């Protein structure tokens, strides 16, 4: 049973995508990456970024809150040192984290001709940086401008990774689609605050962080269902997947691909387990993933 999914002309061997920031640059655990549908790198900024002060991680039973803050090697080192070392058979998507149009222009112009790179994920939504990121992603106008610019600079697939923090994600989704994005990634982490009552201050070094994990899955499922019915480009779901069942729910809700994020931190081989669960399901049902995308029935 083939689990392949097509987004336009781009083929994915299965609907699973390793989410940005949860699997490094693709230099380790390649036995997992090579079985997935696609892999997205840690977000790359124009300048090297040291990230936020400690502590950077907090969790509860069903959530992770992180404030890593886009720590990355920066465009120059990524292109010259990291990219040559990446050796995977899975489509490589590079997450681009700009704070303004100029950043996105520099990032795409520099990387667009790299044959190893299958496509780009435009990070219009990271809550862990003071400028850009989420601020860009909260305005449909700015999402449209960044996506249009990116579209004019590359023929590679463009995924727009969006936020629902303090904005209407239906409008930003439409803006990205109208500007030529090939797919929407819904959604980045939710703004979150952890308070240390003894110190009467935020627990995380950056003050606040981004919430992910199983607790956000029902919320993201709803967004995926609503947006995928209103927008005519594919949706890639990202939110709290820990099992094959979760992936199937997202496909039914309207997602064409599904990202795995927080679960990679608990077990970097979780993707292999989830893939086996998916295979079993589709074999038993005698259908393909493409056959259930958006097939959620009415109550």
């Amino acid at each position: 049973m083939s689990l392949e999914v097509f987004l336009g002309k781009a083929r994915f061997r299965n609907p699973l995508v390793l989410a940005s920031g949860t699997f490094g640059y693709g230099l380790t655990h390649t036995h997992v990456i090579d079985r997935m549908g696609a892999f997205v790198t840690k977000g790359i900024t124009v300048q090297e970024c040291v990230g936020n002060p400690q502590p950077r991680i907090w969790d509860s039973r069903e959530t992770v809150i992180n404030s890593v803050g886009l720590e990355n090697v920066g465009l120059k080192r990524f292109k010259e040192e990291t990219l040559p070392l990446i050796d995977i058979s899975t489509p490589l998507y590079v997450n681009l984290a700009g704070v303004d149009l100029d950043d996105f222009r520099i990032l795409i112009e520099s990387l667009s001709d790299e044959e190893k790179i299958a496509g780009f994920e435009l990070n219009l939504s990271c809550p862990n940086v003071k400028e850009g990121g989420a601020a860009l992603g909260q305005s449909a106008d700015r999402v449209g401008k960044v996506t249009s610019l990116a579209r004019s600079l590359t023929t590679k697939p463009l995924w727009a990774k969006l936020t629902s923090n303090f904005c209407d994600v239906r409008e930003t989704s439409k803006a990205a689609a109208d500007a030529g994005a090939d797919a929407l990634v819904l959604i980045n982490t939710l703004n979150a605050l952890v308070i240390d009552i003894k110190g009467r201050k935020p627990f995380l070094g950056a003050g606040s962080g981004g919430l992910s994990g199983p607790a956000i899955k029902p919320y993201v499922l709803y967004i995926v269902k609503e947006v995928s019915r209103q927008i005519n480009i594919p949706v890639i779901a990202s939110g709290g997947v820990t099992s094959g069942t979760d992936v199937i729910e997202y496909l039914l809700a309207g997602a064409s691909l599904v990202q795995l994020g927080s679960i990679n931190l608990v077990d970097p081989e979780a993707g292999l387990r989830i893939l086996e669960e998916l295979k079993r399901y589709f074999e038993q049902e005698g259908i393909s993933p493409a056959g259930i995308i958006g097939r959620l029935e009415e109550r």
Partner: protein
Amino acid sequence: MKRHQATLLENRRLGPGLYSLQVEFEDLGDVEPGQFFEFLTGARFLRRAFSVADRDAMRLRFVLRVVGKGTAWLSQLTEGSKLNLAGPLGQGVAMPSEGPVMLLAGGIGAAPLLYLARKLNEQRVEVDALLAAGTKEELILTEEFGSLCRKVILATDDGSCGQKGLLTDILPALPAINDIQIFYACGPESMFAALKRLDLGKPLYAFLESRMGCGTGLCMGCGVLGRDGRYHRVCTEGPVFNLEEIEL
């Protein structure tokens, strides 16, 4: 990352909020001092990391201090419980070519240094230990260190056992200190900062603790700021660092 279904053989209270877990593995290769395992708990999403405190054949000992719900969950496990573990993770410590070496333990920092003491003992490297804690009740593993070390010095903040004072107050006055070739230290960040100020003139390897996301180098959650201005992952580049190389 190797995952294990292991069995809890013993869960013993050592002091206030301090527990010693003896865990039996079905399959266990080399484990070096400084390496750690991550425990899945029923109370938190992410695993919790604990360094190896000792080894006897297929049994590893871990010592934990209850600081939140994950560690509380582990502290309440009964003997015979099955544990979902990942490891060994991290880099082992660089072993010295010659001694004597001194181990500097602050509180539960004694745990990974005990396993190092055992390995040093096996290699016939002379080893001294300075074990410090807040109170007598928090001073742990003293007998075990006693059986492996040439000399063990005890200290407590309140003077309830051994010398009175902080580890870094007592250390400079120790007569044995001049012969020491390498120091290995594990304790709270304030202890490392004070050790840095002492400037002992010999290499000092710091066993660091950090809030970890993945433990496998993927998430950049656990970084420690290096002298080069970049964060270094405690999980895969550490958890042991030359004290000179990190900013505190």
